[in-house]
């Protein structure tokens, strides 16, 4: 399926004969191979969950944060190369801060999304730079429209608004699971559990490294500020997801035995 670059893939400033920029596509590959990140825009807020692959058993669980606050009313979650993601977060913080300084209002989500898109895109049009190997999910609250919003920013600079999105290894199955949910009614607390289940489902015990769940949300309960979900809620979701998986396995076994 993947065609060889065959000399057109050495620099982001080169198009291939069939109109592709391979370097940007390779950057997207880096994202596709990372831990799953799932974001859902629920009825009462936005929830983002990350499958934090544990690089080492000696690592402090709270280290290697994959979620970050950009401004009180908006935050992000990173998929792909962590260090690349950190750059995008740093830029987002600068943009949000200077926007509020200049215009006296918190940066509207769609403006932030646009600015970040332009920033990330910039790195795809210079020979001296490489594209970001990270995709960013942005959860934000628009104070004037009184709506909560979810955006996904890809390494090619495209930033689109979603009801539900998934990045990383388990994105295909996660996306189909999200589509099964009724997002007009789903609450944030319910979504945390569902996301945990999706991550456990796509995680391959035998092949993948052990992982931790990291959640952040932006909802009425947090007064529309982006915050880490409390550990009890995460643990509750974790336990529920594990149980759901066991039940599903039992059901499968029952089916097999019956047939």
């Amino acid at each position, binding site marked *: 399926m993947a065609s060889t670059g065959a000399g057109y893939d050495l620099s982001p400033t080169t198009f291939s004969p069939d109109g592709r920029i391979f370097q940007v596509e390779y950057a997207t590959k880096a994202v596709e191979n990372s831990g799953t990140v799932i974001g859902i825009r629920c009825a009462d807020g936005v929830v983002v969950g990350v499958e934090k692959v544990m690089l080492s058993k000696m690592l402090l669980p709270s280290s290697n944060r994959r979620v970050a606050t950009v401004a009180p009313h908006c935050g992000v979650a990173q998929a792909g190369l962590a260090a690349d993601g950190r750059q995008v977060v740093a830029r987002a913080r600068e943009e949000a801060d200077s926007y509020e*300084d*200049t*215009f*006296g*209002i918190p940066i*509207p989500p*769609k*403006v932030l999304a*646009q600015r970040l898109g332009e920033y990330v895109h910039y790195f795809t049009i210079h020979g001296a730079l490489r594209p970001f190997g990270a995709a960013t999910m942005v959860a934000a609250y628009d104070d*004037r429209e009184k709506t909560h919003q979810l955006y996904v920013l890809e390494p090619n600079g495209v930033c689109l608004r979603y009801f539900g999105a998934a990045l990383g290894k388990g994105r295909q199955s996660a996306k189909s699971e999200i589509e099964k949910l009724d997002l007009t009614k789903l609450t944030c607390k319910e979504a945390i559990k569902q996301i945990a289940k999706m991550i456990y489902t796509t995680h391959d015990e035998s092949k993948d490294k052990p992982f931790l769940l990291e959640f952040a949300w932006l909802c009425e309960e947090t007064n529309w500020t982006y915050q880490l979900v409390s550990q009890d809620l995460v643990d509750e979701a974790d336990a529920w997801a594990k149980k759901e998986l066991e039940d599903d396995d039992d059901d499968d076994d029952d089916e097999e035995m019956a047939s």
Partner: protein
Amino acid sequence: ARDRRAADAAPPRAATMMEAAPTVAYDGMLREGEVSTGTTIMAVAYDGGVVMGADSRVSTGTYIANRVSDKVSGLHDKIFMCRSGSAADTQAISDYVRHYLSTHALEVGKPPLVKTAAALAKRICYTNKEQLLAGVIIAGYDEADGGSVYVIPLGGTCLPVPFAIGGSGSTYIYGHVDNQYKAGMSLAECKKFVTEAVTRAMARDGSSGGIIRLVNISADGVDREYLTV
């Protein structure tokens, strides 16, 4: 900054006056030949909008360059700015703010907030405080905060206030407005408040005079009028 001021060939006494007594009348601080909007300007917020008022005299020394000028400049559909100090400086500021505000409105897709206009004007006035001589009042109506008034005096500080007065003529009416102002006035009461105050200032201040321009901004739109004598 002081050296630059001297190099600009500003009269030495003006530089000294600026450092020693920033509250001295504006005429002493203009550069030679510069046109002043020695002025009386005012704005007051009411529930649902604002009333802005200004005199119309523009003077170079004792010569009245324009006796019917418009010191209330539009920045956007429902945001206006009263200008005092150097006419050139305040026109330049209002041009910049108008430009940034229009680009911002396009990006956000909504009418800009009054506080955004004030933030932009403050940024310009503060960062260029050495070169500028401008005291402005920004007021208008937006859906988020209703009628709001922001005053930006000489140094570039920005204060949200229920009402504001500015310009050389304002010094004569501080006592009057403090006495007459009450919270929760109606539109008619606000117009009366502004008219009376500006009239009294124009009577005592040589740099203020002409007609009184009134601008009423509310959810229904913008209403301009002028009063003579």
